[in-house]
């Protein structure tokens, strides 16, 4: 950007680059729990204001009325090294915020589609989204204590997930479990790059 160019390369090197992984899934499936389990900070929440009139309107006097909606995004952070930071973004759970997913998915390493065995259908939309856009993703089945236990094969069949897509069972509250899900996402993205090369 302008200021970077004028300040020269030396100072730019002090600014890390960033990568992100998206954690998607239905409302209440445990996305923020998963982000919190691996993040080095308590998950943060940031809000985007949306107006029904759209962003073409510059003058927003009085927008505090019924035409504004807030989309909340929860996210966490893992500092890989001083030059590289990984962010984990949970998608907004409500269906009407699908359009936010594009911005979140753009430029991401890949995604976790978190699925709850009690509400399998809530995961279909997310699986479809990443499939269509060719974004590498892993299906992670969050095994709640009170949920039924299924095998990975049963889950794959029920969700109709292609064999090429990794499917893992996990516990969104458990750090090691969530770490291994992220590892699978990154490995999957690497394999895909390898195949394309």
């Amino acid at each position, binding site marked *: *950007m302008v200021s970077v160019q004028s300040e020269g390369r030396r100072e730019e090197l002090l600014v890390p*680059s960033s990568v*992100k992984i998206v954690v998607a899934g239905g409302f209440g499936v445990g996305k923020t729990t998963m982000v919190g389990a691996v993040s080095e900070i308590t998950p943060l*929440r940031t809000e985007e204001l949306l107006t029904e009139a759209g962003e073409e309107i510059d003058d927003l006097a009085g927008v505090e009325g019924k035409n504004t909606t807030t989309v909340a*995004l929860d*996210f966490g952070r893992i500092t*890989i090294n001083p030059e*590289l930071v990984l962010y984990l973004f949970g998608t907004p759970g409500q269906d009407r915020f699908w359009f936010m997913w594009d911005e979140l998915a753009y430029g991401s390493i890949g995604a976790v589609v978190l699925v709850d065995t009690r509400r399998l259908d809530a995961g279909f939309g997310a699986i479809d989204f990443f499939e269509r856009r060719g974004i590498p993703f892993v299906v992670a089945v969050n095994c709640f204590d009170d949920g039924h236990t299924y095998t990975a094969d049963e889950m794959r069949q029920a969700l109709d997930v292609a064999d090429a897509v990794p499917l893992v069972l996990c516990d969104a509250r458990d750090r090691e479990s969530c770490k291994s899900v992220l590892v699978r996402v990154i490995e999957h993205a690497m394999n895909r790059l390898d195949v394309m090369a």
Partner: protein
Amino acid sequence: MSQHSPDWWYDEAAGPLVRPYAMVSGRTRPKPAGDELTLTTQVRAIRTSSDQGSLLVEHLEIIKLCRKPLSVAEVAAYLNAPLVVVKVLLSDLIQRGDVITRDPSRMAVPMDLNLLQKVLDGVRAI
């Protein structure tokens, strides 16, 4: 400094008794300097501004926050302000040269194996 500014009496005395968009004079779009800001763009304050009189309290808070590099999303969360408002405020600071960002052209897109390996090693190490 501030006594020469036409609205010095207003900023200093009144403080930010305003709604989110009023904070940025109703602007809903960042200046061109902030066009490329995304959720994860890293921003960092590079010096103490010589002329802080024309800055809002929120600008100063951002400068303070960004002594260590932070993403746009983190700045918005810590400032407790909507993303779009934070992008406008950041674009002011970028234009003034108080804050620098990571040049997007040198960012990690498209992905390469070397970078992914670093991320993989980093995640395994936590």
